[in-house]
């Protein structure tokens, strides 16, 4: 079975996030870059399927040079090969543009199943997976927490408010992965050594036959108007006291006299 995993490199959520001078993007310096945690679930699931049924796992990512670190991480986890789409004209694109490029790349890679995280934790759009499926004309199963492969079909379990929905689609299909699906493995040290020698192909927009005017910053249909950091929290005040009774009394006093909430 040929499995393709779409991965995105995102800032570590623990990173120092600062808004850049343009007011609509974040500063790229001083940020630690990691694989989108939802995509880690997708890589892990792909590896488990390959281990159970054989086949190959190809990892595809779009972005600048540093994206290769994330592809190498997936290769170190056990994926077989990587495809890195790198083109200055692809930079600064929105989700539909990203989907356009990824779908073009997928036309050059054989696949039975495509896996990707349900959303990127950076921009929280959740659009790329479904849009890729749409462009390829294949079904997509979103927010899956359990994958079962049947004969020529795939079954996905989705959590909804108060219950589980089980859906099925014929292969080839695209699945977006949700927390709870699995526990991603660590990239092992020997795995990292081996990953250095695994094939990693770099492709440009021209290689994929994508018109640069339709993607990247030039092809944006959605423009970011402003970015704002959440309001800074006020320092937490700890209520202390010798006994639980004293702590409770002080809490009541603060809530009544100072916060005027009770």
């Amino acid at each position, binding site marked *: 079975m040929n499995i393709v995993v779409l991965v995105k490199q995102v800032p*570590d959520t623990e990173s120092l996030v600062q808004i850049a001078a343009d007011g609509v993007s974040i500063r790229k310096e001083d940020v630690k870059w990691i694989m989108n945690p939802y995509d880690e679930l997708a890589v892990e699931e792909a590896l488990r399927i390959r281990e159970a049924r054989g086949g190959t796992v190809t990892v595809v990512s779009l972005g600048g040079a540093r994206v290769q670190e994330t592809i190498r991480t997936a290769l170190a986890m056990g994926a077989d090969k990587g495809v890195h789409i790198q083109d200055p004209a692809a930079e600064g694109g929105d989700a539909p543009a990203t989907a356009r490029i990824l779908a073009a790349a997928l036309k050059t890679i054989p696949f039975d199943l495509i896996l990707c995280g349900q959303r990127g934790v950076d921009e929280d759009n959740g659009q790329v997976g479904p849009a890729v499926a749409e462009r390829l004309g294949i079904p997509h199963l979103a927010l899956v927490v359990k994958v079962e492969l049947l004969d020529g079909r795939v079954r996905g379990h989705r959590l909804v408010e108060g219950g589980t929905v089980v859906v099925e689609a014929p292969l080839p299909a695209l699945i977006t992965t949700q927390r709870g699906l699995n526990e991603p*493995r*660590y990239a092992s040290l020997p795995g990292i050594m081996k990953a250095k020698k695994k094939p990693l192909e770099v492709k440009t927009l021209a290689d994929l036959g994508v018109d640069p005017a339709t993607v990247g910053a030039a092809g944006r249909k959605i423009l970011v108007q402003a970015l704002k950091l959440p309001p800074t929290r006020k320092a937490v005040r700890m209520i202390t006291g010798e006994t639980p009774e004293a702590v409770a009394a002080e809490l009541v006093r603060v809530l009544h006299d100072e916060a005027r909430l009770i």
Partner: protein
Amino acid sequence: MERERLEFDVVIVGAGPAGLAASIRLKQLAAETGREFEVCVVDKAAALGAHSLSGAVIDPRALQELLPDFRHRGCPIEEENLQDAVFYLTADRAWRLPWIPPFLHSGGAFVASLCRFCAWLGSIAEEMGVNLFPGFAAVETLGDDSGRRVVGVRTGDKGVDKQGRRKGNFEPGVDLLAKVTVFAEGPRGSLLREAAKRLGLFEGRMPQAFETAVKEVIELPEDSPWLGSPEAVIHTFGFPLGLRTKGGGFLYRMAERRVSLGLVVGLDYTDPMFEPYEEFLRFKRHPLVARRIAGGRVLQQGAKTLPVGGWYSMPRLFADGALVVGDSACTLNARRLKGVHTAMKSGMLAAETIAEALAAGATGPAALEGYRRRLEESWLGEELRESRNFSQALSRPPASRVFHLGAQWLSGGRGLVDPMPIHEDCAALKPRSFREPAPVGDLDGTLYLDKLTGVYLSGTRHEEDQPCHLHIPRPDWCTTRCWEEYRSPCTRFCPGQVYEMKRQPDGRPQLKLNPSNCLHCKTCEIKDPLRNVLWNCPEGGGGPNWTIL
């Protein structure tokens, strides 16, 4: 369990300035002599530089020797052509010293973020073919059957739960075998601690002595008057530590309206109620500092220990199949307040010794002893000999300190007593001398932070479901001897609020550990008066995620 074994010529533990300089020098020597050295560097931090913290004013001497074209290779320099000022602080005033001792001059040096500097050095090492493995903690030194020869290290298992059981994503550690293993763990390495006992590396040496630094990088407002001042490097002594406790403050201006600010505190302080973090807040509120950082916002915070024992507390630098470099080997020059260039130089000298030993096909103690000789004969040895009694003199009462320092300066380091004795930091606290804590004022959460906000801004993260990395051999002492005699100083000296004392329903104290907050500074292991804390490496990849400290 069968573990995977990987063989290298050299395995280096720790990707700080010493370990990375050693790896780069090894690759250079391999190229010069037409040989191949397989070099591996492991580091517990998730990313290169993420556990590196220093002021840092870097003397480029070692860097110039290692990479003469460092400026063209993108060395991350924040500020150059530095003008110094040294101030003596009282509670509300600052007295500028009319004369700065030559060893404190920063001319020729540059301000850098050690995180960025190490990430940069690492990228050069990687280009040269060094195998770098951030995110992997070395947890055990591997010996041969006799136990006398070091043959490599074992990396820690990943995916183990709190009870020590394997989780679904369990990944066993691997054995990294090497002809030479280099300990470059930084101050108080947990690996060296155990290996040194077995190999007797600290036998006959003076005790180790440490200081703890709490540091922040603050972004200043655009109209901050200090941005235009020629003084980019400021050192202070006096308030808030007074003259009895050694240490002092620093403010270094960085690029992009940032300032690096910190307080260094000697861990031989005697007052059990003393809290380094609170003193750091007091330092920030001193008018000299407060004026310069007014309107600013803390971007990152961290803490780390510095080995200041110097020459006489350096371990034996070599063993059969192993060398010790950098802060692990106490190469920091306490008198000059600089340790990056000395750490790098020690790594480079170790590399030269190793390259020779590998070429000769012998990596026993006789072959590796040359490292010690090289170090002694180099400018590094000269620097360290000159300051060999410096920190020791600072531990003396203020009245005699001046005479010791003066005599040392006149006699090239010898001074009035040589070697000047020193005591272990953990023995310094005076039992049963309690006092009420003094207020530190309101914390606004932006420029003045409580400890937990500081931990948050250090980006510290550990896998929650893992065995506790802090080993307390006698937990009963925490609520008896330690509480009665010292009122649980761990709750104060730890800058990450890892240790808390809670009241049990019957009113008795109970220790609560928050190992996930740990900043990996190791102050606890060094300062605990009952030596009741052992710091071990948590799962690789855990800990602070500093990028600009």
